[in-house]
C-alpha cells in the first residue's frame, strides 16, 4: 500500500478542459472519495491516476515514485469499473486469476491467491460459475476479487456501486468499507452519490467543472462547506440559501435579513457591502410561533423520526427538518429561527464561504 500524491494535475480534450489543476494527497491506507456531478472531472482524474489517460500537465506520485507517464500495467494499481468489466469468455476463477496470469505467476500460487480472495469476498462456491449467470452483486464481488487478488499499491474504483440496485448498494457499501478496513488499502473512489461518499470516506474531494471545490473529512464538508456548490451538493434536502445585502466587519456576530436580526458565527474577515447568502441546513432551522423570519407553511413530508416542513418566506422557500412530534398546520403563518453556530455565509458572487468562527479548526481555500 502506498501514498498517492497528485500535483497540479490537468487534462484537456482538445478545447475542453476536464481537469483544471488538481492537487491533493491520498494518505497510505486512506479511503479517499472524489464526489461531484457527472462531467466534473472526477473520473478523468481517477483514470489519470490509474494510467488509462495521460495528463496534459502536472504530476502523479505513487508510493514516492513518479508514475505520471507510465503505462497502466507498470503502476501496480487495481481498478474496479462501474460495469464490472468481467471477461465474458472466462469463468469466475479465471476472471479473478487473470491479473496474476498476466504476471506469469505459477499456477499453484494463482490458485492459492484466488481462493484466498474468494474467501474474503465469500464467493468460494461461485468459483467455477460462468460470470454471465451471476447477479450484479456477485459480479461486483468478482470484480473486487480481481482487484484484491493482486495486492496492489492502491485501488481505484469508478462508481463501483452505480450499477447495483438500491438494496444491494447499501449492503455492498458496508462490505466495501469493511474490506477496506481489513486490507488497509489505499483507495480512491469516485461517485456522484453523496450518501455513499459520506458513509465510506475518510476524506472527500468535492469536484465541480474540473476543480476541487473542497477537500476534507465528511464532517468538515457537511458542517463547514467552503463554497455554495459544496453546500448545495451535500445534504438531502440541500442547504437553504437566503440572500441579504450588507457590509461585513471582523467581529460581527449578527447580520440583518430584511430588518430581522440573525445571529451568526463570529465573522473573521472584513468585506465591503455586497450580496451575501446565508446558508442554513434544514436541521438548523427551528419553527417558532413568535418572531423569527415569518413565512407560510406550504407542506410537510413525514419521515418517521422527523419531518421536513416547507415554508414559503419572502426570501424563498425554506425547508426545515424538525421532530415529527411538533404539529405544524398547513397554510399557517410561522416564524423560523436558526441555530447560530450552524450557519454559513457565502459571497453570492463568487460562491466562496466568508471566514467565520465556524471555520476554527478547519482550513479552507
Amino acid at each position, binding site marked *: 500500500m502506498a501514498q498517492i500524491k497528485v500535483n497540479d494535475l490537468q487534462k484537456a480534450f482538445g478545447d475542453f478542459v476536464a481537469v483544471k489543476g488538481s492537487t491533493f494527497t491520498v494518505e497510505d491506507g486512506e479511503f479517499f472519495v472524489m464526489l461531484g456531478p457527472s462531467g466534473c472531472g472526477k473520473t478523468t482524474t481517477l483514470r489519470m491516476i490509474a494510467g*488509462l489517460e495521460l495528463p496534459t500537465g502536472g504530476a502523479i506520485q505513487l508510493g514516492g515514485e513518479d508514475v505520471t507517464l507510465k*503505462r497502466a*500495467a507498470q503502476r501496480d494499481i487495481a481498478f474496479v469499473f462501474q*460495469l464490472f*468489466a468481467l*471477461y465474458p*469468455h472466462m469463468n469466475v476463477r479465471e476472471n479473478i486469476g*487473470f491479473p496474476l496470469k498476466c504476471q506469469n505467476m505459477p499456477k499453484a500460487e494463482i490458485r492459492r491467491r484466488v481462493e484466498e480472495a474468494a474467501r474474503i469476498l465469500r464467493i468460494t462456491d461461485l468459483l467455477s460459475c460462468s460470470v454471465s449467470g451471476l447477479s450484479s452483486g456477485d459480479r461486483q464481488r468478482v470484480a473486487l476479487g480481481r482487484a484484491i487478488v493482486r495486492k496492489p499499491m492502491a485501488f481505484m474504483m469508478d462508481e463501483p456501486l452505480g450499477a447495483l440496485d438500491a438494496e444491494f448498494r447499501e449492503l455492498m457499501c458496508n462490505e466495501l468499507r469493511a474490506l477496506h478496513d481489513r486490507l488497509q488499502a489505499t483507495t480512491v473512489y469516485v461517485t456522484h452519490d453523496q450518501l455513499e461518499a459520506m458513509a465510506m470516506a475518510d476524506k472527500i474531494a468535492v469536484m465541480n467543472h474540473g476543480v476541487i471545490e473542497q477537500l476534507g473529512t465528511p464532517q468538515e464538508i457537511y458542517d463547514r462547506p467552503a463554497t455554495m456548490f459544496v453546500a448545495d451538493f451535500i445534504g438531502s434536502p440541500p442547504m437553504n440559501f437566503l440572500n441579504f445585502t450588507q457590509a461585513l466587519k471582523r467581529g460581527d456576530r449578527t447580520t440583518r435579513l430584511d430588518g430581522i436580526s440573525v445571529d451568526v458565527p463570529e465573522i473573521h474577515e472584513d468585506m465591503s457591502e455586497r450580496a451575501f447568502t446565508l446558508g442554513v441546513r434544514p436541521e438548523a432551522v427551528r419553527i417558532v410561533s413568535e418572531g423569527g423570519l415569518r413565512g407560510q407553511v406550504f407542506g410537510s413530508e413525514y419521515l418517521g423520526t422527523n419531518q421536513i416542513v416547507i415554508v414559503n418566506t419572502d426570501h424563498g422557500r425554506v425547508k426545515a427538518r424538525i421532530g415529527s412530534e411538533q404539529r405544524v398546520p398547513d397554510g399557517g403563518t410561522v416564524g423560523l429561527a436558526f441555530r447560530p453556530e450552524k450557519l454559513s455565509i457565502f459571497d453570492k458572487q463568487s460562491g466562496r464561504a466568508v471566514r467565520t468562527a465556524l471555520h476554527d479548526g478547519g482550513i479552507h481555500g
Partner: protein
Amino acid sequence: MSGLSTAHSVVEPSATSKRVAGALVIAYALITLIPLLWIVLTSFKTPPDSIAYPPKLMFQPSIEGYCNLFTTRTRQTPEYLAAMPPPTGYCDRAVRSRNMVIAGPSNVIPRFTNSIIIAFGSTFLAVFLGTLAAYAFSRFRIPLKDDLLFFILSTRMMPPIAVAIPIYLMYRELGLSDTLLGMILLYTAVNVSLAVWLLKGFIDEIPREYEEAAMIDGYTRLQAFTKIVLPQATTGIAATAIFCMIFAWNEYAFAVLLTSGEAQTMPPFIPFIIGEGGQDWPAVASATTLFLIPIVVFTVLLRKHLLRGITFGAVRK
C-alpha cells in the same frame, strides 16, 4: 430497458399467422432454390438429356458432365477406337461412347485453385486490415477521424467496375495483370472499406472497460487487443469475412477484364466450357455446382455468426 419493452405489443402470434408465415417462407425458398436445383439436376444429365425438349424431369443420372468438366477430349474414328485397349473407367467408357478419347486434364483444377487462393487471400487481408483500422477508429482520438471514415466509405459510392479502365491500365503498367497478387490486392481494396465499417460497429459495441481492465492487470495495448478484443469480436469478424468472401468468390467483371490465363478464376472460366457441337451444358452445370460448394460450406459454418452479425446493433442487450 427491459422494463420499457412491454410498451410494444409482445403478443405471441396466432397459430394461423405462424402457419401462413411458414408457408410464405417455404414458397419463397422454393422459388429461389429452383434455378439452383435445376443446375444441380442438369449437372447429372447426359448432354442430349440436358437439351431435350420438353425438359426432362426424370432421367437416367450420369456423371458425364463431371467427366467432361475435368478432361479435354478429341474425336476419333470408330476404327481407331476399336483398336484401343478396353476402357479403364466410367469416364473413359462414357467418352468413347461418343466416339471420343480423353486427351488430358482440363483447366478446371487450376482455375478452382485460383479462385480459392484469391478469395481466401483477399478475405483474410481485408478482414485483417479492417479489424486493425476499425479498432483504431473505435478507440483512439484520431485527427480528422470522421473525414477519414467518410473517405473510406466513399470508395463504395460508385460501382467498382466504373474504374475498370484505369485499373486495367495501371495493372498493365505494374505487371499485375493476370496475377494472383493483383487480384488479391484488387478485391482487398474493394472489401476493406466494407470491413472497416462493419467491424467498427462491432468493436464499438465491446465495452472498452474490458481492455482497460486488462491493461491495468498487466497487458500491453496489443495484448489486450489480441486476447480480449479479438475473442469478443469473433462474431463480427466472421460476418465480415462472409461478406468479403462472397464478393471475392463471385466477382465476375474484373476477373474477365484482368485475368485470362494464369490467374483466371472460376466465374470467367465457367461460361467458356465448350463442348463439341455447342455448349456442353452438363459440364457447365457441374462446374457451377462445384463452384457453389465452398461458399455454401463457408456460410453454413459461420451462419450462426452471420445471423447475429447482420442484426447486430439493431437490438441492444
